[in-house]
């Protein structure tokens, strides 16, 4: 009985996380491409370590914003701006 309860609770929490995380949309690359250059757009490159340094490609105009330093850049941008975080 305890095991069943644990599995149910675990499943509920896992499925509930997207709800708790708020309304975060995904953006396709073509949509981002069409927005590049617009004033209201902020592209943040959240890759860290080798994920960033080994990559040949960085989106033009993207600002490097490692997640570990969130406290330093988290409040730097206007709330009404379109902020795109990319990691791959």
């Amino acid at each position, binding site marked *: 009985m305890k095991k069943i309860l644990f599995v149910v609770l675990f499943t509920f929490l896992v499925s509930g996380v997207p709800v708790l995380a708020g309304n975060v949309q995904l953006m396709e690359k073509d949509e981002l491409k069409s927005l590049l250059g617009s004033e209201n757009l902020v592209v943040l490159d959240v890759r860290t*370590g080798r994920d960033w340094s080994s990559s040949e*490609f960085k989106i033009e105009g993207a600002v490097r914003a490692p997640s570990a330093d969130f406290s330093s850049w988290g409040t730097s941008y206007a709330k009404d701006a379109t902020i795109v975080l990319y990691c791959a």
Partner: protein
Amino acid sequence: MRIELFSISLMLAWMLSPESLVLLGNGIGDQGMAVFPMLVILVALSAGAALIVNHSHLPAQGFGGTLLIREQVGKVAALSLTLSSRLSVTLLASCAMLVTSGFAFNEIFVYWFPNFGFASLLLSCIVLVHIAGQKWARLAQASFMVILVASLVTLLLLGVIGGEGAREVGNQTTTISWTAGANGLLLFLGYDLVVSKERKNQAPMILTVLFFACSIFSLWANLSLKFVDPQRLADSTIPHLLVAREIAPPLGRYLMGIVIISGTCAAVNGFFFFTGRSLNHLAGEGMFPQFLGNLWQGRLLPVVFGIAVTGMMFTGLAGEEILEAYLRGSLLLWLLHVSVHSYAASRYLMRSGRIALAYGVLVSIVCLGVFLFLLFKDDNVVALIRFIVITLACSLAFSIVWLGYIKKLVTI
């Protein structure tokens, strides 16, 4: 002859690895024209160290000089230095380079193939080759090296023959950067990975390899300065790709992709082989647990390395900035090992009456000096010192416990 070719491939594996290409590219950017005389100084110093640690009058025992260090400096020092330097560079450099090659494959060749998937695939292939046996590991090493050298030489030729977009190198800036110069000493490490069953005069082979590597580096430096602005090279994390892209678009990118992937395979395979065999030999001497070193004819160790590297990749170490500090620390430990190895070799040679080779002590002091310089000059000095101290402490603790345990068994 086969052993010589294999030793050459082991020596070159680090020198032409993706990590070395980044070090080289950044150094070229920092120093400009000064990189050419600096390379000459560095290769001369490295040749001095190489000739001492591989001297034909040293006893032909052990891999990497651990037994020589044991004889001259002490068992505990020998084992702890070997474990800390060899294991750390094998595991950390392998993790870092495999991730780099994963990105290279994904971004240059097959965009839909996952980076980590490719890195894991490469690692699996290398471990399987080692499970198959020493013969296959040697064959794989030779194959990787042939592909690597062929691709790199082709790229260099394209750069020399081509020239569109090239600038005059003679008018470039010249900056003496001691840090960049000291970093350059790390480029030529690998000369202590010579494998030989019997001591004979390996000086011609070693000097040929060092001269070859220096020539490649000099030619690459020339092309880099011709095609890319030095500041971009100094600041980039992929300076070698920047140059390759300019040399012969788009072929240059593909060739550099092959260089990165084959270089990774050669380096990882080489490290697994050399470190594995070193520990096998130590197990035979009672300095390392026999069940690890000799089980399954020594094939267990590369599997253990593979599991450790997989663990590092899957726990996200590659995405942590601290990996660069750890990798740097492991390279400095390798340099420290060379320093102690040179000292041990020169003590042995001096006791045998070969006074002319006392310059080995000078080589040892220079290597130690560069080790300390690079350590304290690093931006991440605290993390670096912490890594080196903890690694040495752990290997020292293991050595004391294991060698004490063996001594007790022998006494009983």
